[in-house]
């Protein structure tokens, strides 16, 4: 049976593509900063976080259709991109280490205009975060970057019912580590 022309236009590939683009733009406007914030806190590198968040959205654009859980999909892709970047960086640093050992360290120096106090506080927080298991760290950072329990569960392939207890446990461990290392926060 032939569909009426108007119905086939409404449901045709062009309409689907337009819907996808509209959904994608809305998702980008609403959630880009959350993804950026998560990656920035996880990596400690704002420029890298911005690039990775954009690359993740680009891959979704190339995919051409929305996954069931778009944000979980984006988190997974972005986290994998970060892992790949770190692997490449570490290999590059290993190769360069023999030539100039200062290269690796200089990459971690604060910006010249960054406040020393601020850099020190960031270092303290990062030190406490590093004590968590990678999974607990990710869960805690995702939650405090505005992601829902469901998005966290799907992105990290864990039961949704475990997310709350993981946030609780990771939060306790993080605060305890911070206090042990640096005393009560201001």
């Amino acid at each position, binding site marked *: 049976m032939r569909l009426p022309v108007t119905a086939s236009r409404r449901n045709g590939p062009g309409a689907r593509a337009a819907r996808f683009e509209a959904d*994608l733009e809305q998702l980008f406007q609403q959630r880009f900063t959350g993804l950026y914030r998560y990656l*920035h806190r996880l990596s400690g590198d704002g420029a890298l976080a911005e690039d990775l968040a954009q690359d993740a959205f*680009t891959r979704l654009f190339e995919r051409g259709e929305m996954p069931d859980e778009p944000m979980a999909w984006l988190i997974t892709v972005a986290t994998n991109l970060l892992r790949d970047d770190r692997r490449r960086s570490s290999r590059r640093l290993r190769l360069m280490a023999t030539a100039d050992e200062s290269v690796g360290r200089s990459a971690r120096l604060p910006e010249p205009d960054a406040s020393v106090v601020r850099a020190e506080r960031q270092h303290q927080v990062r030190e406490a975060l590093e004590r968590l298991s990678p999974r607990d760290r990710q869960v*805690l950072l995702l939650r405090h970057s*505005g992601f829902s329990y469901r998005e966290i569960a799907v992105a990290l392939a864990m039961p949704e019912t475990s997310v709350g207890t993981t*946030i609780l446990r990771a939060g306790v461990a993080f*605060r305890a580590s911070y206090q042990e290392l640096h005393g009560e926060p201001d």
Partner: protein
Amino acid sequence: MVSQTETTHPSDALLLATIHAEPVDELAAVRAHARECAQCTARQRSLADDDAMTGALLGELDDPPRTADQPRFVRRSSRRWVRRGLRVGGAAATLAVAAAALVVPASPLHRLVSRGIDAPSPNSIPAAVPAAAPAAASGIAVPASRSLVVVFRHEQSQGAVDITRTGTGDITFRSHGGNAAYQVAADQVSIDNSFPADAYQIDIPRGVQQVRILVGTRVLLRWPEDSAHRVGTSQPGPLHIPLAAGITNAP
């Protein structure tokens, strides 16, 4: 035999889920229990304080507030995203879609591409970011007491807060778009709007008798002093306050 008076308290994880405004099945029951149970109310406050402390510490890792240039940041990101999409995609189909988008003014992609091409001068007024859909709201719920102070940490050039008085229950905060973070202390909620939302929605039970809302140090709203502006009256509909200006009533 279990005594009739024996009470099962919700777990900490469940209490935390209600603070995070997660749609857990037991939400209504947990809130109802917490309202009646002093022990759980205290525990909920303690969990909220701990959660706020964690949020504040993690907030140290963020860039300095970039409220002023956030819209430009979003636009720049959009521009780079599309540019990368075109470059990395490479396929004829992708180019065709993008090319079509450029000549179809109604297309969202056209708007993104246009933003990239029509990059504003540094002094131009940022274009409004499209309103966010309610589906992407994030928020928290905190137990109500007699007074409440809400502090938006940074000025926003756009966006608004809608305040609704409710019968009973918790004070709830929701934000649409952007990525606001909340810190809860006794009778005070601080909203880190470094990544500002387009709209904030605050539901305040009538039992809360005194409310202050500040943007930085600027007072946006005082209850009950601003009652002339129909705040706290029984008129229907939320009170709509643009964040950039003072109090204005909703049409």
